[in-house]
């Protein structure tokens, strides 16, 4: 556990020292939300798209966030030094995933009010369930994004390769998060939100487990 706290502290310090990174991610997701709003044919369509647009914006921001997170560790060979340091690869993975979850949750919390305001989509459902869905969705995106980010970070054309691999993989999470958010915005009259949340929790648990097992093989040579 000492290792995990040490690595988490490192992630926190690196984030703290690069505040511009967070604001650029928020502006990026806000730009996606605004562009979709401008391109939408009607206000009614806009309302229906609110949940989906929100999660697409978070997904796109996650690719930028992962790119930047790995770049920091590749700059001066810190990744190899980390692998050789007596820290379990799984600890490195979970620290990175937790940091990315925190980043994405912050971006989501900043983007949420924009969606509610611009898309004329007042929140009628339970706020607590929506927050739970939001955190679980961000955690669900963070694990595969971190794992695939480690695979592609050193490849040529990493910024293209990562979305190509990530987007198909996270379709179930995107679907569950978008649908769950949409029904909560509408007040969840049929009580569907817990089912979507359940799918999201299963997806997240699966990818957190798989990531912890596979990460060592990805960052190690051979």
């Amino acid at each position, binding site marked *: 556990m*000492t*290792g995990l*706290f*040490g*690595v988490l*502290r*490192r992630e926190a*310090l*690196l984030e703290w*020292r*690069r505040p511009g990174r967070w604001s650029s991610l928020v502006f990026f997701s806000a730009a996606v939300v605004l562009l979709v709003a401008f391109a939408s044919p009607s206000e009614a369509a806009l309302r229906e798209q609110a949940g989906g647009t929100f999660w697409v914006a978070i997904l796109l921001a996650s690719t930028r966030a992962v790119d930047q997170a790995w770049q*920091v560790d590749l*700059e*001066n*060979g*810190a990744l*190899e*030094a*980390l*692998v*050789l*340091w*007596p*820290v379990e690869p799984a600890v490195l993975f979970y620290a990175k995933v937790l940091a990315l979850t925190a980043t994405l949750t912050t971006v989501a919390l900043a983007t949420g009010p924009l969606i509610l305001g611009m898309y004329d989509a007042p929140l009628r459902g339970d706020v607590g369930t929506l927050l739970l869905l939001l955190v679980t969705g961000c955690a669900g995106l963070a694990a595969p994004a971190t794992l695939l980010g480690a695979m592609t970070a050193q490849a040529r054309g990493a910024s293209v390769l990562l979305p190509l691999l990530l987007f198909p993989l996270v379709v179930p999470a995107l679907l569950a998060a978008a649908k769950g958010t949409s029904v909560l915005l509408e007040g969840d009259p049929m009580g569907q939100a817990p089912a979507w949340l359940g799918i999201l929790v299963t997806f997240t648990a699966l990818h957190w487990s798989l990531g912890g097992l596979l990460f060592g093989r990805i960052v190690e*040579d*051979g």
Partner: protein
Amino acid sequence: MATGMSIAGRGLARRFGPRWALAGLDVDIAPGELIGLTGPNGSGKSTLLRLLATALRADAGWLKLDGQDAWGERSELRPAIALASHATGLWDDLSAAENLGVWARMSGVAPDVIAQLRRVGLDPDRRDPIRTFSAGMKRRLALARLFLRRPRLALLDEPSTALDVNGRFLVRGLIEELISSGTTVVVATHHREELDGASVRWMALQDGRAA
């Protein structure tokens, strides 16, 4: 006093794409020995150091550290190995003290950051990110990182690169300190005079083989 690590390898080979960086090298190093590794650029010095550090896996041959398979037992061996490679392994956005503190805490070591910074001639009160540091200062900091733990095998890849005269004396002092504590030390260098007077055994490489 720490006991140095023994190294034995036969037919070590490692390929990067079509090119063999090491092409069948035998290595035997006794615990506590100081090895000077020389050879022209591209002769395989850095690759050998990374193999010894268990950062790379050999494509052919075998390597044993303390009688254990280096790759198979890498998790157990790594805490006793320190590699100072060309890359500093530091984060430019953090200060020198933060960098060392982070590395120390990740391995559960109580960080004596100020002493380590003074030891390598860096100002412990400097709070600016190390992206403002010169290459030589970053090299000093990278060497300080090496001493956060007590390695039994220290691998130094051209440790004096970018260092001034004082820095070269510092490296020499650090190597002597490692040797006197029983650590096995392998230094890749283009400048034999850096290890003058020390009880060093030289190994020369050429095209991935012993010259």
